[in-house]
């Protein structure tokens, strides 16, 4: 167990692999980044069941759960950046979310999630052209959210539930660009002074919400015999990124940093979805979510010829998926007890002229008789960057989710 926990920490030290929007917010971890949801193409926000667990998009869903669900997710993503026939690869491992949901019968259900909603990560270096010092670029930014939620089935119309969640934002961001001198403008008698002096452009900061402890999501869920729907609304909010800019020779420099705070105005999000169940355990689902970004995002930037802002566009997710639920009977054949998933999505990023097409396959493997489930999903797709400085990205992702299901507090 200790080794497992250690592994979790090691993985959580890393982050996503996409390098689009590095200087803005980074990559969004859609729908909480759960392996089970990702396996069906990020669709299925409306899908209910005994142990569906928490959805950060739809906090009303787990009102219909009857079992306690704990779920932790890992992601290994490999990205190949492409531009005019050139390409290079980056990859990383991360842990995008933990989720715990706790049904309380007639008292509704509570839940809490730890969700790395946006992050940027890159750690690369190349040999210097003008000197022997490597140019290195390191980004590590994570917007983490702790998301407590509560949901309740309505008293009379029991097929409906309402839910709400608060998103308490925290996180940190660092950027370090190190390089040697370019002495091209110096006369030959002056070059000695620059030598091979390495300088780092180092920025570090923290994330929080401006003037408020959290932002909120409210949702309404309908569970029908075959069809289920949800609708959710997430409040707009302003993320505050307090930054210290340093241009330094070493970490021991005591130079005064430029302290500057950038604000990212995140618009409201509307999300809806439906799930249609047929032949008992087969489901097709469709989800749509959108954020109407209307203001540019001020970049960390501040250095060299980096863009001062990231232009935005309407952020839209359209996800379709299929899931065949596994049999709950432990004496059924193992293949019948497994869950099978298939899905695809189209997403326009918040970064202007960037959109993403992806597909996924997934499966859930029951472990033992106690309801523990191992979810695996394999994703692939392409992010198209039609303008700006971003390159196209072909990505492959492997997600693994560990789901523990229990009947805590239930006597029958």
């Amino acid at each position, binding site marked *: 167990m200790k080794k497992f926990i250690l592994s979790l920490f090691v993985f959580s030290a890393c982050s996503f692999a996409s*390098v689009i929007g*590095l200087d803005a917010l980074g990559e969004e971890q859609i729908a909480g980044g759960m392996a089970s949801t990702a396996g069906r193409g990020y669709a299925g926000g409306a899908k209910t069941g005994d142990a569906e667990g928490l959805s950060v998009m739809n906090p009303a869903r787990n009102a219909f759960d009857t079992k306690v669900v704990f779920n932790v997710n*890992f992601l*290994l993503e*490999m990205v190949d*950046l492409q*531009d005019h026939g*050139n*390409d*290079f*690869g980056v*990859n990383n491992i991360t842990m995008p979310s933990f989720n715990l949901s706790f049904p309380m019968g007639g008292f509704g259900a509570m839940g809490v999630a730890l969700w790395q909603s946006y992050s940027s990560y890159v750690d*690369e270096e*190349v040999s*210097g*052209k003008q*000197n022997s010092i490597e*140019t290195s*670029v390191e980004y590590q930014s994570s917007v983490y959210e702790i998301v407590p939620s509560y949901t309740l089935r309505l008293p009379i119309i029991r097929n409906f539930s309402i839910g709400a969640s608060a998103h308490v934002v925290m996180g940190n961001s660092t950027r370090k*660009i190190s*390089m*040697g*001198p*370019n*002495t091209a*403008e*110096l006369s030959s008698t*002056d070059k*000695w*002074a*620059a*030598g091979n*002096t390495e*300088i780092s*452009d180092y920025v570090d900061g923290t994330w929080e919400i401006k003037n408020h402890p959290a932002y909120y999501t409210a949702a309404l869920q309908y569970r029908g015999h075959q069809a289920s729907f949800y609708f959710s609304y997430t409040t707009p909010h302003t993320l505050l990124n307090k930054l210290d*800019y*340093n*241009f*330094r*020779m070493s970490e021991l*420099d*005591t*130079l*005064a*940093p*430029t*302290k*500057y*705070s950038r604000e990212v105005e995140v618009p409201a999000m509307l999300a809806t979805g439906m799930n249609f169940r047929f032949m008992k355990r087969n489901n097709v689902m469709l989800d749509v979510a959108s954020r109407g970004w209307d203001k540019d995002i001020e970049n960390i930037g*501040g*250095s*060299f*010829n*980096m863009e001062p802002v990231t232009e935005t566009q309407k952020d839209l997710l359209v996800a379709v998926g299929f899931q065949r639920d596994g049999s709950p009977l432990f004496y059924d054949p193992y293949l019948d007890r497994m869950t099978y998933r298939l899905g695809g999505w189209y997403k326009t990023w918040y970064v202007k002229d960037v959109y993403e097409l992806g597909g996924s396959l997934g499966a859930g493997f029951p*472990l033992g008789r106690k309801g523990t489930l*191992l979810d*695996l999903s394999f994703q692939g797709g392409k992010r198209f960057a039609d303008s700006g*400085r971003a390159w196209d990205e072909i990505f492959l992702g*492997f997600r*693994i989710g560990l789901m523990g299901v229990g009947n805590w507090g239930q006597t029958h």
Partner: protein
Amino acid sequence: MKKFLVVFLSLIALGLTACIFDSDETVMASWLSDQGIPSGYKVQTLSVGDLTPVSAEVFLDSAPKLANDRAVLGTTANVSHDLVFDASFYDPVFFDDLKKSDSAEAHLALRVLKPFYLSKSFPADSLPLKEDVSLKISWKLEKGASKSFVDSVAEIPDSLWLKSLTKWKPDATVDTTVSFTVSSKDTIVRIKIPSSFVSAMKKISKACRLQLRLSAPEASRTYRFYGAMSAFYPKLWVTLPETKSYSEFDPFRMAHLVSNKETCTDCAVLHGGVYDSLVVEYESAPIMKALSDFYGDEFPYAVGNGDDVRQTVVLAQMTFARDDSQGTSELGLPIQVVVGSYVDSAGKSVRKMEAYKLNKDLIASKGHPNMVFYDGDSLTLQVTYGLRDFINRARDGRTFKMMMRLGYPVLQPKDSSYSDHVTSKKDTSYVFFSHFDHARYDFSSAMKQPSTLKLWLANKRGDE
């Protein structure tokens, strides 16, 4: 659990495999370029001329220092060097005999610092040194009764002892004249201590502490001796001719006290071998204006809290006019000028000694630019740390402040290693002479003439 482990380990293996893929550096560089990240920060130079200091203040060294290794006695370059010996001893039998003696004598023997006088760098025609030196000998005697008294004296921290010497109130002072002879054969200077000192010692019964001070304010030069903790430590002994016996009371520590006799209070004079320092301040406006003109925008740039980090100083040099004719030195060697500057540390201004980056081409052709008593008419000192801190915080109008001090004599002014080193032939190449020159250098005229600041600036501003 086995299934889980298999899957888990497989994913780790997959991750590691993915990490092995190497990226094409050329393509990576292209991506970096697309992101607006260059492969090197731009370095530019800026010269700011006609800088005159708003203040140039000399801080004369007057703090007593330990002289346990090397000791200096005498007067030169308007600085007088005194020595104080601290000794304590317990010998009731000897003191009984001393009381009975009518012809007891006390002597102090000092061993001259042979590595200095016999060095090739010491002017060959200077030895032998012969002089009748007028000495002031003063002392403080404290009576004790036991061995523990001796121990208690030894336990007095050096720092407290040195502090006590700033208020020297002797029991007695006597003047005497001693013939000093230093040559390759005469390496001991013997000082007979006048009889009043012996009389004072006769009042001791069992134990005492003796603090003995030698001053030679009329001496024509300084004399260098070994200190109390060296192999050739000074010896104080009292002889009793009646019993043909003697007792030796060797000091266990020594102190070096300097007194400055410069009469010109406005002069920017530094002395070698002591910690005199010249602190020079420049107002910020001319430097800020030059930076503003250079970058073509307001400097510092008003963003955030106003500290501007879009550029930093890679190297900074301040060049002064130099006129060695107003200085004197003992050895005739070039002397390095040591530099410090003042930087912010948690809101407090602290002095930081500067590093020295070597311009090897210049050094090989003309020698180090940071020396006095050398060819040329300028003195160039590197003040990188200070300027780096200064331009980063200069929005508050602070002055740029630097400090200079005379350092060691330089034996190889054109050696760019700038430190003693072992050559390829396994010989030690000494760049510096390891003994200070008690020189005097007057920077007054240099401070009155304009100096030039040259900055090498690293820039992270984008292309305008």
